[in-house]
């Protein structure tokens, strides 16, 4: 393994612009990816990690061009495989900060299996899933997050298959950290990035992202000043889940069935109001939260659904190496001559 010379400049001196590259950004004008890029570049200095210790790995898709625009190490790999590639990198180089950028097609269609396994494995990866509910790069086919009945080039009579709820799916796959945020809400986005970065293990961040060419306005309900407060459920750990204008709406638990749902006009002291617990060991809680919203986005929880501690794959793996080394020094000659040997003399 290389032992690179550490750079002298103090890391704190980094600015957002240090993370820009000389590459012309090639998304469509108005694409939500721009906002995410700016938010991520703005957040990076806070990470407190030297640029050279950061790696962005992506698959293929509009979103997956992301690494070209980050002045860190980066790999624009192949469709769906970024979580696998990043797992190899992160588990052999636990000193790095490894980020994956992917899309709803990249992560959930062709790459679904790698994502799922990355989540259960829990290597130290931060996965940013740009969910525009469409295949952007290939010009507008429906994706595994598109709503049923979606009319696209490949589904002229409407799509037939129920979409995934990426949050539910991730929780079902034993994810230790799952969050959702929005391209246009820079502050919220950066807050979620912060939480993800602090989490040790695989963090999945679903970012609703507008594709203004092929699926424009998909998340308008959560963006439009007239509607967003009515439909966005902000999750904050330790806080009662209240929202809407004047916080009149709340997520309440039905004491009879135990299920949770949204109610309007909930009294301030209603004991049924759920207090958000992102650290709840039982994933059933976060799962229930994830079911509050359907594809119509009505009542969409935003923020960190779940963040629990679990040993990370990279750490466990490197511990085994240390343990093995502690038991005995590597001895190549001994290895080669191991087992039954015999000697032939001249």
């Amino acid at each position, binding site marked *: *393994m*290389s032992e*690179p*010379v*550490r*750079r002298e400049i103090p890391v704190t001196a980094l600015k957002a612009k240090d993370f820009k*590259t000389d*590459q012309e950004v090639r998304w469509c004008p108005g694409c939500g990816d721009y906002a995410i890029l700016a938010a991520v570049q703005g957040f990076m200095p806070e990470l407190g990690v*030297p*640029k*050279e*210790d950061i*790696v962005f*790995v992506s698959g*293929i898709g509009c979103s997956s061009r992301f*690494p*070209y625009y*980050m*002045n*860190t*190490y*980066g*790999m*624009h*790999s*192949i469709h769906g*495989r970024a979580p*696998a*590639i990043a*797992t*190899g*990198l*992160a*588990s*052999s*180089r636990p*000193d*790095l900060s490894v980020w994956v950028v992917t899309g709803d097609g990249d992560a959930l269609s062709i790459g679904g*299996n*790698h994502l799922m*396994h990355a989540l259960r494995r829990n290597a130290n990866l931060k996965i940013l899933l740009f969910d525009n509910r469409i295949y952007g790069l290939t010009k507008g086919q429906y994706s595994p997050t598109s709503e049923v009945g979606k009319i696209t080039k490949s589904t002229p009579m409407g799509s037939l298959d129920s979409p995934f709820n990426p949050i539910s799916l991730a929780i079902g796959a034993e994810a230790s950290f799952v969050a959702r945020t929005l391209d246009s809400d820079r502050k919220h986005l950066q807050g979620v990035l912060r939480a993800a970065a602090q989490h040790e293990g695989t963090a999945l961040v679903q970012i609703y992202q507008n594709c203004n060419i092929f699926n424009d306005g998909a998340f308008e309900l959560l963006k439009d000043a007239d509607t967003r407060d009515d439909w966005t459920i902000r999750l904050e750990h330790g806080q009662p889940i209240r929202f809407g204008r004047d916080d009149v709406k709340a997520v309440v638990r039905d004491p009879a069935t135990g299920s949770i749902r949204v109610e309007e006009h909930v009294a301030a002291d209603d004991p049924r109001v759920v207090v958000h617990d992102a650290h709840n060991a039982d994933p059933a809680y976060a799962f229930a939260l994830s079911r509050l919203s359907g594809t119509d986005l009505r009542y969409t929880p935003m923020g960190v659904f779940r963040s629990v501690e679990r040993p990370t794959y990279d750490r466990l793996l490197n511990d*085994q*190496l240390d343990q*093995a*080394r502690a*038991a*005995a*020094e*590597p001895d*190549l*000659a001994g*290895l*080669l001559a*191991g*087992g*039954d040997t*015999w*000697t*032939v*003399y001249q």
Partner: protein
Amino acid sequence: MQKEVKRLDRVVIRFAGDSGDGMQLTGDRFTAETASFGNDLSTLPNFPAEIRAPAGTVLGVSSFQLHFADHDIMTPGDAPDVLVAMNPAALRANQGDLPAGATVIVNTDEFTTRSVAKAGYASNPLEDGSLSQFQVQAVPLTSTTVRALEEFDISKKDAERAKNMFALGLLSWMYNRTTESTITFLQEKFARKPEIAAANVAAFRAGYNYGDTTEAFAVSYEIAPAPLPAGTYRNISGNPALAYGLIAAAQRAGLELFLGAYPITPASDILHELAKHKRFGVRTFQAEDEIAGIGAALGASFGGGLGVTTSSGPGIALKSETIGLAVSLELPLVICDIQRGGPSTGLPTKTEQSDLLQALFGRNGEAPVPVVAAKSPSDCFYAAMEAVRIAVTYRTPVFLLSDGYLANGSEPWQVPSVDSLPTIEPGFIREPNGPDGTYLPYLRDAETLARPWAVPGTPGLEHRIGGIEKADRTGAISYDPDNHDFMVRTRQAKVDGIARSLPPLEVDDPTGDAKVLVLGWGSTYGPIGAACRRVRRAGLSVAQAHLRHLNPFPDDLGEILRRYDRVVVPEMNLGQLGMLLRAKYLVDVIGYNQVRGLPFRAAELAEVFKGVITDV
């Protein structure tokens, strides 16, 4: 009773029984005894695809063949001189391979009417005269073992199970093997069950004594040690040898090895072996599938590790797309294909050489990948080191081809001293190489055309790479037509240029007057070599050469091919190397092809070669 001892120069023994009879263990032990005695040897295990195929059926038979000699040998032998058949199914499954006059030691206890029928015999072969051309030694192995173990406090089942050790003891007597190592082995293996250990040792000794005292065994044999070069030896099969080669190469390169793999027969044992060696900085990652396996390995290489992935045919097919990415990224990566019978699931436990063209062409676009092949079990070690050398030096994925026969077969290996192993220079770049302190990730080395390898963590060399065509030098995305043409040709030139680093191809043409060259690759080395010896013993001249490098070919190959009137290319496929040679050198090579899931028989090859020679 003083018994006669006859000298032999070589023997081929095959142990055969039910999958549950422990034939592989028996064979391994006999091999160990033989190895430590100093014979040269070669082994060939053969087992059913099922984990435990139905007992007593021909399909459930597992066998182990061992060829040992007082001189150096090249194959596990075409046909057994001695067959040990633990039950009727074992006899039936192997009978057809026996030459007239072979010795057959049968376990008569198992020849019940039911078992005989289950094996598919119409009548009891021990009684119907159908074995008359063999020397049958009828031994009630099971009952004698059980009787010998009466005093032990073990179950009847355990006692019966020890019959393989009885058989081993008997054979050890017959061939004057040393017995200590087996006794030690049994004591260690059953350390936690001392009664079982003692019983097995007793069974082993009983078998030995049975040979010594029973009249039916009148002769024992002596095969003198082979005059091998001085040194320390061990017996080794291909998969561990390959694993050691990878570890050794990583050590000699100062790199940490990362294996991303998904289990598959017959490659899984490399994963198992490497998993044991974490102290060498070896990380093994059992991935969710083959694609993740190679992806993770490539990620590790990007991080400055030595990425390796292992699989067999169907798994390699799945890796195709990612291999293309590795070609484009120009990062070191070793892809081990332990070939088996194809197409599709094919014959998972059988051997074949039919993935050569997949290795060369199995991905989209012009995506050249160097290909290296091992020729014998122990050679897997050196082939692995060579694959790593190429991968690291040229920043390229490299195919390392082995097969089911090499993976499981074994032979003595003279353990090399660590210092004698070549070192490999990863040559990480640590400083900017471009104008104004920039880093040019595709600025190439003038000699090798390799690009620099800048590892995350190195300040100032931050860069992005990907699978879209890249501009020369800068590595930025480029759709420029001329740049694409240039890059396609440059990647090809880089791989072609590896030939400059190769030694001349060795041609074994002892008389110097051969008109026929036999050219092979991979695991056919042994049978071809043995066949050439036979041909020469018959007074004919033949030249032999064997390719370690299938891509690029050694520079002198064309000239060598043209030196001979005829070139014969035996392959366990329908002529894949043959096609490449014809295309490249326009030489009308003669293919000799078998796709039977088994190694060639030397005798058969010898006849083929003779035919060609006398035809010239």
